[in-house]
């Protein structure tokens, strides 16, 4: 197994971990962190998968540079939206998640 493949498999694991946190964690800050973990997984898949016997492929590297900048700006926009939501509602989570948690607490 080459080193690049190992990185790519690690990236797949990070991607899956990120999805699970995105789905399971109601706090919006955690959801943004989960998206970042998923993005890191995708970058690892691209760079790790692109490095083989022929050397490191520059095309996925260029895509990852582009992806990092897009990920940073998307994170900044997400954080600004979370701040806005927290200031307006007093909660850093979505109303659906809060309602469900309240309903589950009542059912117990």
């Amino acid at each position, binding site marked *: 197994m080459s080193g690049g493949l190992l990185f790519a498999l690690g990236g797949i694991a990070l991607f899956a971990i990120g999805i699970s946190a995105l789905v399971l964690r*109601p706090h919006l800050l955690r959801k943004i962190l989960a998206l970042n973990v998923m993005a890191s997984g995708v970058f690892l*898949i691209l760079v790790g998968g692109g490095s083989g016997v022929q050397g490191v492929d520059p095309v996925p590297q260029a895509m990852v540079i582009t992806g990092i900048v897009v990920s940073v700006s998307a994170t900044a*926009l997400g954080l600004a939206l979370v701040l806005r939501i927290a200031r307006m509602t007093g909660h850093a989570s979505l109303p659906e998640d809060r309602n469900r948690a309240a309903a589950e607490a009542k059912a117990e």
Partner: protein
Amino acid sequence: MSGPSAQRPVLRAVLGLALLAVAAGLANALMAPSGFPNLTAAVDASLESSGVGNPVTAVLLNFRAYDTLLEMAVLAAALAGVWSLGRATPTLALRPSPVLVGLLRVLGPLFPIICGYLLWAGASQPGGAFQAGAVLATSAVLYVLLAREAGPRLPELPMRVAAVAGVGVFLAVGLAVMAAGGGFLEYPPALSKTLILAIETAAMISIAVTLAGLFLGGRPRSEP
């Protein structure tokens, strides 16, 4: 709020199984004999005509310049989104730490030199507009932290112009080479190094201003 979905073990198990299936599918696609096409040879073959010697820069600004153009547009859109949510609020009313003041006194003059080097080196070595822009943005963020006492007061109009300069210059170059007879963003080989450097310089300034503007978390407070 207690643990995430602690009362729903079945749903969690289903999610875990679905994620395992996704991971297995991805791993299977990755390990397939023809799973990951390698374009190293294709890039090397046409590197000579790209105007730069660094394959990553050649891909970013020549072979797949479309991606980079749209990325600059995404940056500008993110900045517009953050700035449209309101004005930057001075969140830290602390006096700047003497460590930060001393650090900036030492590092301040070095930042532009590092940026210029990274931008120029990007043509033949690792480096380029993104790295240079990130360094420039770091210096801007440090200066914003220094000025936090009175809240960030920055020139809003020049920042707006600088934030869209990258995508503007990129589009102008792309359309100009079209007018000269090529395709969109299809540089004539003799001019490609000059054009790529012009685009990279504008992109560096845009990236730096956009990242610093995103850090502010809102429009600069220069206007009443």
